[in-house]
């Protein structure tokens, strides 16, 4: 339905799609411009940074396509339209996800995959079978970890109903963070996104395993293989938080 509604304003849809391609292209342009001045950033060359960018962007794009409307939960709680979802015989999480589903979000996935494809043959990696297998696994479990953050953030909005920007700093901020090598940041920050909000498992740790590089906070290489386990471990509490949040929902009356 939402796909058809956006198609109604055809000129605008075309401009939106082009705009999305431009937005994602120019997003990478900042990194490309940086590399017009330097050979490496934090010890990582252009191909490696593009690899990080591609994996982070693809994983985030998948989550954004499926759950990108989660930040509307706060508004629905505020104006009481959450009630509409509660009376329909479909899981509420699925309804929230489908709310204002935007096909144009595919743009980010395409951009991520293109950059990933460009970087792969240019990487200085030894492609053993476990590394090859880890590649799709890391993107999918990365999407699941981002998904857990989206759902947890939406659950948080049942309490703080107009704070969707806090969620943005973990989702959009998270994907921006993961586009740069972990060596660029302080150890405290790397520790925080490894143990506190395990975003490092989206691509940093698996990528370090694939590229056979030392971990800046001294974790062994095999931790990169743990990404799917971490993804499962993240989704369970996020789901519980969502259900707990939904239980505390009180309609606005009127």
């Amino acid at each position, binding site marked *: 339905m939402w796909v058809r509604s956006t198609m*109604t*304003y055809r*000129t*605008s*849809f*075309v*401009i*939106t*799609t*082009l*705009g*999305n391609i*431009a*937005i994602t292209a*120019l*997003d990478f*342009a*900042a990194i490309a*411009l*940086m590399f*017009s*001045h*330097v*050979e*490496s*950033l*934090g010890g990582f060359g252009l191909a490696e940074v593009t690899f990080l960018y591609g994996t982070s962007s693809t994983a985030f794009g998948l989550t954004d396509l499926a759950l990108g409307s989660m930040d509307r939960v706060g508004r629905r709680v505020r104006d009481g339209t959450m009630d509409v979802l509660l009376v329909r015989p479909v899981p509420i999480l699925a309804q929230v996800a489908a709310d204002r589903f935007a096909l144009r979000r595919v743009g980010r996935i395409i951009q991520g995959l293109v950059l990933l494809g460009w970087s792969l043959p240019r990487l200085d990696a030894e492609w053993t079978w476990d590394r090859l297998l880890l590649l799709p696994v890391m993107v999918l479990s990365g999407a699941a970890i981002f998904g857990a953050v989206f759902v947890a953030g939406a659950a948080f909005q049942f309490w*703080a*109903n*107009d*704070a*969707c*920007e*806090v969620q*943005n*700093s973990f989702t959009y*901020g998270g994907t*921006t*963070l993961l586009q*740069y090598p972990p060596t*660029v*940041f*302080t150890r405290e*920050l790397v520790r925080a996104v490894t143990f506190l909000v395990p975003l490092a498992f989206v691509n940093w740790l698996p990528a370090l395993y694939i590229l056979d590089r030392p971990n800046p906070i001294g974790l062994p290489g095999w931790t990169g293989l743990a990404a799917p386990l971490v993804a499962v471990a993240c989704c369970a509490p996020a789901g519980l938080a969502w259900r707990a949040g939904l239980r505390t929902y009180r309609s606005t009356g009127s």
Partner: protein
Amino acid sequence: MRLYAAVAVSGFRRYATYRVATAAGVFTNTVFGLIIAYTYIALWDQRPHLGGYDRDQALTFVWLGQSLLTAAALMGGSFQEEMQERIRTGDIAVDLYRPVDLQLWWLAGDLGRAAFHLLGRGLLPMAFGALCFELALPASPLTWLSFLCAVALGLLVSFALRYLVALSAFWLLDGAGLNLVSTVLSVFFSGMALPLNVFPGPLGTVAEALPWAAILQVPADVLLGERHGPALAGAFAFQAGWALALLAAGRALQAVATRKVVVQGG
């Protein structure tokens, strides 16, 4: 004049109501400031004096960008969506019937909003940045004063650009596409993505001549003490020139657009 001041004050108070949202926004600006600051440190460690900035100046640029981001609505999310909605539903006819100037009315409201965001979402990230990093903030009150003038002119340019985008709804009805394009251009060409003086060759020259440079790059250069004497006057002239040209363009487009409006009876 009193009327427009009242509109500006109500614009300020309208955004001041959302305290939790403002706190959340400050948190977001701080997180992004931190991430970008570390990438700039990595960049400037390899190339000290890149683009004529030293490391402290580059870091000041990062936090200034976060402070001006919402005030100048570089990522959108201000009056233009509301105005486009009024155009789409036809409510704009009521606005045109009022004995006020349409452009000045929206300008007053937007300046009120910007003033709130400058205080509410500008000061704290900057203070956080100054605590965590070595920033190149000026000591002279005169520099601060010229910086505030540059910010004010920048806000005017930002409004004038977004007013043109908002008016496009008279033809497109749904402004979402053009809003997005406008966001892309303003983020990239204002210096938000990377300071414009780091852009290589002709791209940098073009970027510094476009109106978006007046929103972030010019105020930043004024704050960082890169513009003195005649160069400072030149910077103000650049900003004021774009502001006047774009506001005039908005006025002309508005005249064409309002001739299109057909009020349905009922």
